[in-house]
């Protein structure tokens, strides 16, 4: 233990604490709490019953007050630890509360009513996970549908992105032709055109093509990413041209060269682009919000935001579905974080 502490608290030069060391640790620990805290709070909250969610002050972990059904009472009653005047504690069920006094009964002897000052009783609480927060939205609401839509959009868009962008990158890295620099310029220019600038006309084009209220309307405008073309082209430039000449001598068609030679060799870059694309498409919000207006077509992001914007928000469901929405990205983060961080550091693009 001491060793670990020494390792973690290791300082530059091994001398005394410099003020920068203090700032560093303050920043790191503060960062840890601020960056992870909210997500962890979300996960804990998502496991609470609606009643527990409404409590203030809230408990950190999902506790519920235990209830019992007692003879002679229709509704289940809350269990409390009650302090008796003689100093002992008994587990009693509350029948009703009048002012500062609670009328309670022993579940085993329901006939006798015990009066307890409300400050002398504390609820009997046990940890309990409200898993129905997760199952209900799938069973009773459309969330299974939304999940499927999100998965469909993400997978299909990523596959098309990989194919279309790698084809373009292949053309731009391994062929000499007249319009090449113009094509590069066009692709570069599209970096400057974010969705928010072309929302209105793009919507009209999508409608004209009959893609309004279609998942394809969500997918197609996103698949030709300039970032993707650049990442792949940069990588393909490192594949020796002699390899392609060799394949040509080997009677390979250009399509075969692309498919059998260039694509397999571009696998690392394709993996990076695939990860990026999955995260992008999974997280897309504004464009699906515009294109999809029928409930059964919503993606998770759209569904969530619509439900959370309703008048009486069912937070227990929303929180659980937020966690579900977060899961793939967290998995990507845990397993592929290194790919992404090096990818971003290398290209400066998100």
């Amino acid at each position, binding site marked *: 233990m001491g060793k670990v502490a020494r390792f973690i608290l290791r300082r530059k030069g091994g001398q005394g604490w410099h003020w*920068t060391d203090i700032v560093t640790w303050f920043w790191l620990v503060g960062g840890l709490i*601020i960056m992870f805290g909210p997500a962890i*709070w979300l996960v804990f909250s998502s496991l609470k019953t609606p009643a527990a969610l409404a409590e203030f002050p809230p408990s950190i972990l999902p506790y519920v007050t235990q209830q019992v059904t007692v003879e002679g009472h229709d509704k289940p009653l809350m269990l409390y630890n009650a302090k008796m005047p003689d100093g002992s504690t008994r587990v009693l069920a509350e029948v009703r509360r009048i002012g500062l006094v609670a009328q309670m009964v022993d579940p085993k002897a329901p006939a006798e009513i015990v009066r307890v000052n409300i400050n002398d009783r504390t609820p009997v609480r046990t940890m309990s996970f409200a898993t129905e927060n997760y199952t209900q939205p799938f069973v009773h609401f459309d969330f299974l549908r939304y999940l499927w839509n999100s998965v469909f959009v993400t997978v299909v868009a990523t596959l098309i992105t990989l194919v279309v962008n790698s084809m373009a990158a292949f053309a731009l890295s391994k*062929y000499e032709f007249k319009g090449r620099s113009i094509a590069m310029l066009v692709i570069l220019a599209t970096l400057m055109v974010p969705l928010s600038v*072309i929302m209105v006309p793009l919507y009209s*084009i999508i409608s004209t093509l009959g893609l309004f209220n279609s998942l394809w309307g969500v997918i197609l405008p996103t698949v030709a990413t300039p970032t993707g073309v650049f990442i792949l082209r940069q990588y393909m430039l490192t594949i020796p041209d002699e390899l392609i000449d060799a394949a040509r001598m080997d009677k390979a068609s250009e399509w075969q060269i692309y498919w059998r030679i260039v694509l397999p060799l571009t696998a690392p870059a394709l993996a990076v682009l695939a990860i990026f694309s999955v995260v992008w498409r999974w997280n897309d919000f504004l464009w699906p919000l515009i294109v999809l207006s029928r409930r059964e077509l919503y993606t998770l*992001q759209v569904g969530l935001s619509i439900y959370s914007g309703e008048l009486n928000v069912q*937070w227990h469901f929303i929180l659980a579905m937020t966690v579900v929405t977060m899961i793939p990205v967290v998995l990507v983060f845990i397993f592929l974080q290194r790919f992404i*961080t090096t990818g971003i550091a290398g290209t*400066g693009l998100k």
Partner: protein
Amino acid sequence: MTTPSLSAILMAPVNAVMRMIDVPLRRLQKATGIGGMAAFFLAPNMLIFGVFVLLPLVINFVYSMTGGTAFFLSERDFIGGQQYSRLFQCQNYLDPMSCQEDAFWTAVGNTFWFVLLQVSLMILTALITALILNRELAARSFWRAVFFFPVLLSPVVVGLIWKWILQRQGLLNFGLYQFGLDPYTWLTDRNWTFAATIGVSLWAHMGFYALIILAGLQAIPKDLYEAAEMDGTKPARVFWRITLPLLAPNLLVVVVLALIKSVQVFDEIYVLTGGGPGTSTLFLTQYIYETGFASALRNPGLAAAASILMGGVLVVLTLIQLGIGKRGENKGKR
């Protein structure tokens, strides 16, 4: 000979499809030659770019000069620059409420303050984070991951997480309660909500910029620091005289990148506040979205005009960024 691997079995149908595609493509190659195949490979991308980026870009100008609520261009009337003059019609240019499109000017004002505050705080915190992550830390990649974590979260998730924390029974009020302070409904207070939008977008994106700055820091040759250490230079002086000047080009790119993203702020804020309370967190993209699609009195022409104005700002920023990038590249070459 060899037992086929799992991937070979999985790829078999794909390969079969590719072989089938190859038959007509070989014929195409015969007809067009190798140069023609280059066009073939480029075509899908160019088609998608053309239809979904370039065409909209052109149509956008046409839209901005038409009126009415219909969405199809053929059903819209040409009205020239009226949408623009509507956007710019104000009695007093210092007071957004005196303008005909007061929502637009409110959004412009909000966006302006948001960009100003968010970008400066973003660069400051990202720089501090990067400097700290660049120190000799134990488990550095873990700490890097800590700050990077929110970057991948979807805007909707970010918005909902913070909406949940800032609501009346939320974590923030719980914290205040622990210190004996009264809970507060943060998201009904105009100023606090605005502050929250900045805080939340900092939380969500700071790690991204920190990562880029960190890459810049790590590109600074170590021997410079060693030389400074040999000379007994004070750390503060090392920062001002070595780190900052050498980081400047990288930092400049980060600033412009942050500006470009910040001007377009929408998703997480929309989920968090919906632009409210009132119009206190109504930003430009939301204005365009609501004017074009969501409001009862939708006006695509006006939305297009507003988006073109915003696009102009973004183009200027992007050109600055490219200019800086070019200069940095040339410097590297020399």
